[in-house]
C-alpha cells in the first residue's frame, strides 16, 4: 500500500482514538491522565491520549498529520516506536516529581526521531544536523517562551519530547539491526 495512505490511516486512527477519549471521558479526567496522587496502572497508557482542551488536542493531531506527511513511516515501525516512547516517558514520569501529565506530543516526536535515524543511515548528515538544531532550538528557546506567554495551567514537559525523539531513533536503530541480522541469517542459510 502507498506509504502516504498508510500514514493518513495512522493519523486518522490516532486522532479518532484521542477524540473518542475526549468525548466519552471529558477533558480533565483525573483518572485517565497520569496522576501521581491518584495513580492507576492504566494511566501509564491513557495519559498519552488525553488532552487538556480542544486546542491542545487539535494542535497535537495537526502536528501529527504534518509530521507523518513530511516523514512517512510504516505502521509497524511507527507502532513499535510509540510503544518504546510510552515505556520511556512512563519510566520518567514515575521517577520524576511530575504530579500530572496528559498529551500526545511525547509520542509525536517519535516521527522526527525515526526520520532522523533514516537520514543518518542515508548519510545525509546536513539534514540530521539541521533537524537536531531545529529540535534543540525549539525545545530550549521557543517552547519555554511560548509557555511564558500563554495562560496555561500546565507547563510543557520537554523531557517527554526528548524521550519521544530518542525512542524514534532507538526504534529505527533496532529495526536496522534486526534487518541486518535477518539478512545475514538468510545469507548463512543460502
Amino acid at each position, binding site marked *: 500500500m502507498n506509504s502516504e495512505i498508510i500514514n493518513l490511516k495512522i493519523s486518522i486512527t490516532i486522532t479518532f482514538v484521542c477524540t473518542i477519549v475526549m468525548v466519552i471521558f471529558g477533558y480533565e479526567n483525573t483518572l485517565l491522565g497520569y496522576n501521581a496522587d491518584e495513580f492507576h496502572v492504566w494511566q501509564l497508557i491513557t495519559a498519552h491520549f488525553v488532552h487538556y482542551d480542544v486546542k*491542545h488536542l487539535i494542535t497535537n493531531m495537526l502536528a501529527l498529520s504534518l509530521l507523518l506527511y513530511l516523514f512517512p513511516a510504516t505502521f509497524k515501525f511507527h507502532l513499535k516506536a510509540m510503544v518504546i516512547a510510552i515505556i520511556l516517558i512512563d519510566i520518567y514520569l514515575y521517577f520524576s516529581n*511530575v504530579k500530572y501529565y496528559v*498529551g500526545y*506530543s511525547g509520542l509525536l516526536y517519535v516521527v522526527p526521531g525515526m526520520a532522523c535515524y533514516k537520514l543518518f543511515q542515508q548519510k545525509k548528515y546536513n539534514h540530521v544536523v539541521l533537524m537536531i538544531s531545529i529540535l534543540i532550538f525549539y525545545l530550549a528557546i*521557543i517552547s519555554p517562551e511560548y509557555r511564558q*506567554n500563554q*495562560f496555561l495551567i500546565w507547563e510543557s*514537559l520537554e523531557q*517527554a519530547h526528548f524521550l519521544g525523539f530518542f525512542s524514534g531513533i532507538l526504534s529505527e536503530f533496532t529495526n536496522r539491526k534486526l534487518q541486518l541480522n535477518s539478512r545475514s541469517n538468510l545469507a548463512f542459510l543460502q
Partner: protein
Amino acid sequence: MARLFLLISVFTLSSCAIFGEYRHRHTHTTSLVQFLYPQGKLPLEDKRNPILNLPLRVGLAFIPDRSSKQVISPVLKNTLLENVKASFGSKGYVNEIVVIPEMYLQTSQGFGTLEQIKNLYQLDVIALVSYDQMVNAKDNLLSLSYLTIVGAYIFPGTGYQVNTMIDMAVIDVDSRSILFRAAGTSSSKNQIVAEGYRSQAYRKRQNAEFELAMGQMQGNLIVELTKFEQRLGEKDPNDRIKVKHRKGYTGGSVSLFLLCLLFCMALFKFKYEFRNN
C-alpha cells in the same frame, strides 16, 4: 355585657388592621464587609499583591445569616452553591471547588476564620456569597375584612413585594483582596395574599426570589470569569494579580510556531512533489 366583650375581642384580635393602611418591611442582610471586618478595624499590615497558583482550589460559602430567623432554607442554599460550582467547574484553571458548610463560618468572623478554612481545605481562594433581601408589605381595602378574623383567611388584603440582591466576591485570603465579584438581582411585583397565609407566602416567595437572583448572579459570574481569564491571559506586567503554575502539572503540546514551521515544510514538500510529477 356580651356586646362589650364582642367589641373588645374585635379590637384585640384584629390587632392593628383597624387603624388604617398597614405597612411593614422585613430585611435580611448578610454583609461581606461586616463579616470580614467584624470590629470595623482595618489591618495594619502592608498590602500584598495576590499571587495565584494555577490550577486553583476554590472554596465556596454563604456568609452566615446571624439573625435568629433564617429565611432561606439551608437545602436551597446548598443546591444553589452546587449550581455555582458547576459554573466554575468548566474552567481549566480551576482544579477543585469545595462547598464549605455554613456552620464553619457561623461562630467566628474575619480574615482569621477564612485563613483557618483555607488551611483546613488547602484552598487558594474563597468565594463568599452575601445577600440582601427586603420584603415590603402593604394592606389594601380588602384588609378591612381581617376585622372579622375569618376574612383574614379568605380575602387577599395584603400585598407584598420582595427585592433580592446577591453578591459573590472571590477573595484571595493571603493578600486579603477581592479578585472579582458578580451580582444578581430579582424583584417581584406586588403579590396579594390573605393575612392568614402571609408568613407561608412570604417564605415561599423569598426562596423563589432568592433562586432567581442566584440564577442571574450565575450568568454574571460566567461573564466575570471570562473577563478575569482574559485579564490573566494578557499577562500585563502592571497587573497586581500575578499567576504562577503549580509545580508538577505538565502536558505534551506543540506551539503555534512549530505548527507553522511544519506547515511551511509540508507545503514545500507538496510543491516539490507536484513539480516532479
